[in-house]
């Protein structure tokens, strides 16, 4: 298997502020545009690539070696790779894992994902940390021969993340049912805003049958199939644009049906409760984020993937559905990571209890949702 060493073709990563990183092509050849964001996880690139929340984003992996364990058929978080482009330093030449089916690069090419390698990803990360996430482009086709100035113009012409409504693109077009494992205990409706598979697994494991609905569904449909509860999924885009979803959520709150939201879902609930959302400078994307459960004072190490957040300096706030509380905060920067309204039986977190990739410290939240539905049923 002596794959003889060879340099690959030139590729460029171009940021809208004019900074250009030169590297080698990786994955499919072409041009790709998206918001440049860095992810600091050291494991789980397959889950990251297939997480719909990364839609329209060019993901930079701070971990230098990517692809070591190849690509398998079990760890996908959705039906496909969603990232707009992929930036790594040292892609693996082989796949080494008993579950692997093919190398990462073969998969990237098959799914036409444009990537770039050999980039000083740390320099890039420091830049984004200081200046903030911004639009960017990867060029590994004939475009690469264009002048940096021209390439920057191309990037500036691409779409912004702020104000972007991406839900339509990632949401399922038709409703479907994800059965419970073993005996069915509860039936819920889940609005698919870019939902990760492992969320469904966690629910199913707990005897929950999930009716996954398109994001455009009306409150009535939601409440119809969501007999025991409603779930708002994670997903990409600017929550400020999700007017319809906020409307639906308010209806659910009025109904006092147990409600659980994750990530984008947390932002939707926040807005439904009258809070604002805002764009973070460079966001939270990693698997080592310390979040404190303010009730217990315990710290969870959690997976994050959000560029926007809910705004609330106050620990509690009045809402038309009862007293709202901030239940979790990130210890690194105090960003709101969880909300609840006890009266309305609604709660949500900004981070990812379903992990995949990442630590499992927070999966108790799915139990919390199930318990809520139990109480509600018994009441």
């Amino acid at each position: 298997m002596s794959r003889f060493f060879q340099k690959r073709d030139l590729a460029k990563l171009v940021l809208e502020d004019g900074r250009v990183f030169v590297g080698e092509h990786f994955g499919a050849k072409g041009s790709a545009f998206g918001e440049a964001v860095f992810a600091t996880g050291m494991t789980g690139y397959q889950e990251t690539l297939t997480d719909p929340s990364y839609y329209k984003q060019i993901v930079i992996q701070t971990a230098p070696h990517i692809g070591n364990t190849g690509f398998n058929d079990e760890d996908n978080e959705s039906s496909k790779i969603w990232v707009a482009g992929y930036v790594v330093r040292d892609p693996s030449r082989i796949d080494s894992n008993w579950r692997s089916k093919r190398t990462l690069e073969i998969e990237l090419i098959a799914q036409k994902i444009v990537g770039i390698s050999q980039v000083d990803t740390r320099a890039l990360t420091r830049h984004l940390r200081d200046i903030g996430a911004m639009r960017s482009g990867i060029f590994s086709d004939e475009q690469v021969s264009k002048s940096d100035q021209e390439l920057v113009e191309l990037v500036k012409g691409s779409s912004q993340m702020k104000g972007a409504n991406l839900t339509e693109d990632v949401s399922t077009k038709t409703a479907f049912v994800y059965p419970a494992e073993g005996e069915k205990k509860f039936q819920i409706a889940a609005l698919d805003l870019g939902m990760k598979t492992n969320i469904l697994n966690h629910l199913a494991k707990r005897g929950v049958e999930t009716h996954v609905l398109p994001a455009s569904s009306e409150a009535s449909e939601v409440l119809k199939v969501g007999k025991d509860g409603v779930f708002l999924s994670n997903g990409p885009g600017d929550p400020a644009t999700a007017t319809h979803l906020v409307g639906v959520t308010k209806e659910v709150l009025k109904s006092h049906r147990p409600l659980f939201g994750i990530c984008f879902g947390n932002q939707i609930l926040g807005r439904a409760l009258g809070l604002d959302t805002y764009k973070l400078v460079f966001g939270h994307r990693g698997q080592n984020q310390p979040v404190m459960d303010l009730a217990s004072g315990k710290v969870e190490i959690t997976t994050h993937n959000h560029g926007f957040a809910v705004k609330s300096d106050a620990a509690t706030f009045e809402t038309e559905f009862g007293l709202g509380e901030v239940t979790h905060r990130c210890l690194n920067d105090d960003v709101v990571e969880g909300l609840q309204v006890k009266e309305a039986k609604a709660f949500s977190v900004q981070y990812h209890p379903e992990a995949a990739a990442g630590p499992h410290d927070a999966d108790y939240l799915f139990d919390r949702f199930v318990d809520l539905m139990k109480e509600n049923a018994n009441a």
Partner: protein
Amino acid sequence: MQMPRREEIKSVLIIGSGPIVIGQACEFDYSGTQACKVLKQEGLRVILVNSNPATIMTDPQFADATYVEPINPEIVEKIIAKERPDALLPTLGGQTALNTAMALHKNGVLEKYEVELIGANVAAIESGENREIFKTLVQKIGGEVARSAICHTLDEVLSSAKVLGYPLVVRPSFTMGGAGSGFANDEEELIKIATAGLSASPTSEVLLEESILGWKEYELELMRDKNDNVVVICSIENIDPMGVHTGDSITVAPALTLTDREYQKMRDMAIKVIREVGVDTGGCNIQFAIDPNDGRMIVIEMNPRVSRSSALASKATGFPIAKIAARLALGYSLDEIANDITKKTPASFEPTLDYIVVKVPRFAFEKFPQADPVLTTHMKSVGEAMAIGRNFTESLQKALRSLEKKESIFSFEPEQVEINQLIEKASIPTDGRIKTVQRSLFLGASVEELYESTKIDPWFLDQIQLINEVAKEIKLQGELSEDLIKTAKRHGFSDKQIADILGLSEAEVREYRHKRNLRPVYKTVDTCAAEFKAYTPYHYSSWDQETELAPSDKKKIIILGSGPNRIGQGIEFDYSCVHAAQTLSEAGFETIMINCNPETVSTDYDTSDRLFFEPLTLEDVLEVIHAESNSGELLGVIVQLGGQTPLGLAQGLKAEGVEILGTAPEAIHAAEDRGAFGEVLAKAHLIAPKHATARSYQEAKIIAEEIGYPVLVRPSYVLGGRGMEIVYDENLLEEYIQKATAIAPEHPVLVDRFLDDALEIDVDALFDGTDIYIAGIMEHIEEAGVHSGDSACVIPPVSLSDDDIKDIAESTRKLAEGIGVRGLMNVQFALHQGQLYVLEANPRASRTVPFVAKATATAIAKAASRIMAGESIADLKKVGVLPNNDVTVKLSNAPIAVKEAVLPFGRFHGVDTVLGPEMKSTGEVMGINHSFAMAFAKSQSGAFSSGLPKSGSVFISAADRDKTEMKDSIEILYNLGFKVFATSGTAKFLAEHSIKAEVLRKHYEGEVAGEKTTIQAINEGLIDLVVNTPFGVGPRVDGYEIRTAATLRMIPIITTARGLKAAAGAIAALNKEGMQVESLQSHAKTINLARAEL
């Protein structure tokens, strides 16, 4: 931040880990020092006990009461009784501290004196360390363990073996570094290993276990706080699969061949384990094995304490585990402690790495030719080097060159070999196996073939293949180009490697590179992959795009460390480097440390103003120098504190125009080059033992005859007494020349007159160009011929006359002047029949600097650093850094300090334990007291777990030349009621002096009519002390067998007449009075009072 810590704790006792031994090295000085710092910051009274004087932690400033005393329950109880600490923190001093703490709990001492164990609880230690309890507990929480059986007797062992089947692993409980463990493929091997194992375990308990050789091996470092917050600090993957002790494996952080699912499975299990075991606060380390075919996961073991791996993990991630562990023990929770590096974020997080760390072990098999070099579950390495790079290839190659062993570095010359033999060779784990792997791949073997033979994960093999391919690419292009250099450097190639491939000189490659300004950049270790700003200048080089070195306006001084620990160069040198960093920082300089040893205090980012974790090669050091010169004003480089490693770089650095602070390279040459040194001696009218250089056996013979036997022979091209032997006659000379050296004109052999029965003296001194300060005069216990590093020695000298001392001081001054020393110098003299000979002079800090500093309560390493930075001895006396009089002025009732060496023979079965001119010890202990006898007694119980027996029986077998000298000592023991056993000759001699001795038959004579052989007697435990002085060199069968048997049963052995004299005195003293403990601080008071009286 509020103060949530437990206010009722006002004083804490910390137990150190004692002498450096294989499996327990200076990583515990690092963790202990961190803990002391933290506890003092918290305003607690810190009481420390550690018998190892070479440690930083035992510097008086780090504790309020520092006891350099033997670490055993009796002594520690005395300390507790005296100091009455509120709490005992046992988790930072390795297995030694943990076992001692457990003993003190079991025998009720802790309860009696109301001392609370903090940072660990007894139940947790029990279930973590006891393999049986641990296994059941793991199964209880749904984990899998290797099938096994616990045995307490050999019979149990054999019957269980029948159930489990071979091959088996034997592992004793409550031991560290795999002491007494190993693989058994059949019953014979099993008996051998299990016997050793049962005696190695303090609970005489061993675990037999199904072998899972070849599985992937991992370690997780975790921390837990009182609120049950658990974080994983670091994942470490062993490149060498299961079967090679983690301490001997090449390891990489973070783990590189796991999917998130497998990693999280491991993390979940680790967290369950730490909770179930009940480690309520602090760090712990858990090992896992994973079946590469289906991912089946097995939990191997846990260490409920800070371990070697925690030190590695701390350096690898920038997360200071020991420091945090100490805070947690005081009742803080992780979220209440700030992350030093980011300042803003809390310690309750999991570090994420954007670089790759590789650790490689350093072995010393060349010192123990008879030792079995195959790596197994029983740790054999004496040190390690760590490297950081932005990818694996860069990091691996940096790590390999950090070892300072030419053979370790990947090479790419063609070679005619039977490739299958090479692949076969790679299947046996040994020192340098990775090189065999690289060569096999380079010479045409496939990754699959090597995976089959080594079970090293194909990913790593492919990376090594990648390195080979880059090498081939270099060869193919045939000449330097910017692109080629960038590519090669990105994969860790040194200028030398590139030069070798292209047939150029290293200098040519470097010149080409520098002309085009092709240089590495410097990145920062920040725990968070750049997500947050880092405030700690902890750097590593990489061939990437952006550098992160901040400019500074302070005057800079670079200190070169001593690299991986090895026999002859270890913690003692790190001690001096750390002192330099501390003093020079205080003096307002910006201190910059360069070192690659993860175990040390010098590589703690708190120690210097800037830390560069880099190999200590000319190339790597020059690049740091260049980078630092661009970021401010660099005054120069200190090379005399890190031992031979930096000293060896002095010439090269000078040639590149680098300013060397302190002793100049020319002066270093004058001391190290035999010819030049000869002139220095001549000018000073000093004499060395007659010597000459032989280029052939014939020449050697003639020289030896003219000098007169015995002679000391050594190859001229090796250092550290390597290959040095005492030769008593022509036959032995021939033998030596044949086996030891390929004598040739280019490889001459040095022949010295051997000063038989001479007294050896070590001197450490400071010189500033005008004044000399004699810092320490050490009288060796063993006669010259035993390497200064292995010989016990005493301060102040006990048998030297005032004239001798004058003579020594004056000779030292002449040498310092003649050589041109600025700073520290170490001289070894031999006093032979009233004549003083110079054996050698080292123009650098010596191994004995920390011992001298502690014995004389003088910070000589600090003084040396300030001399190098331009101050004079006179100045230093004015400001009180040095006392007005040096040690040539005797002090009334000053304490007496004895240093004893600690030898690794117990780890290398089959290796003879005789001391000789080649250094073999890994560590040292100090005994300090007001009488020599008691100080010596302490040094012995510090060095041997058992210590000297107060009564019982002694076995004596002496070479004729020693008998007369030994008579008096034996009489002392005899009169103390010792039963004396002896070999026939010795017994006869003793009878003549009316000492009754029972004769034991020689081993080869075998048992006859109930008359036991020595070995039988030893094995049956009839003997408490072995005295065996061998004649000549090489293991002479009987003596060898005796010493080996004694070593296995850990019975103290004395191999010299002088050693026996000291021991007899000590035993007598022990019978008169018990050992009393006293802190260094209180000894210092005595010394300073005496000084004031002058």
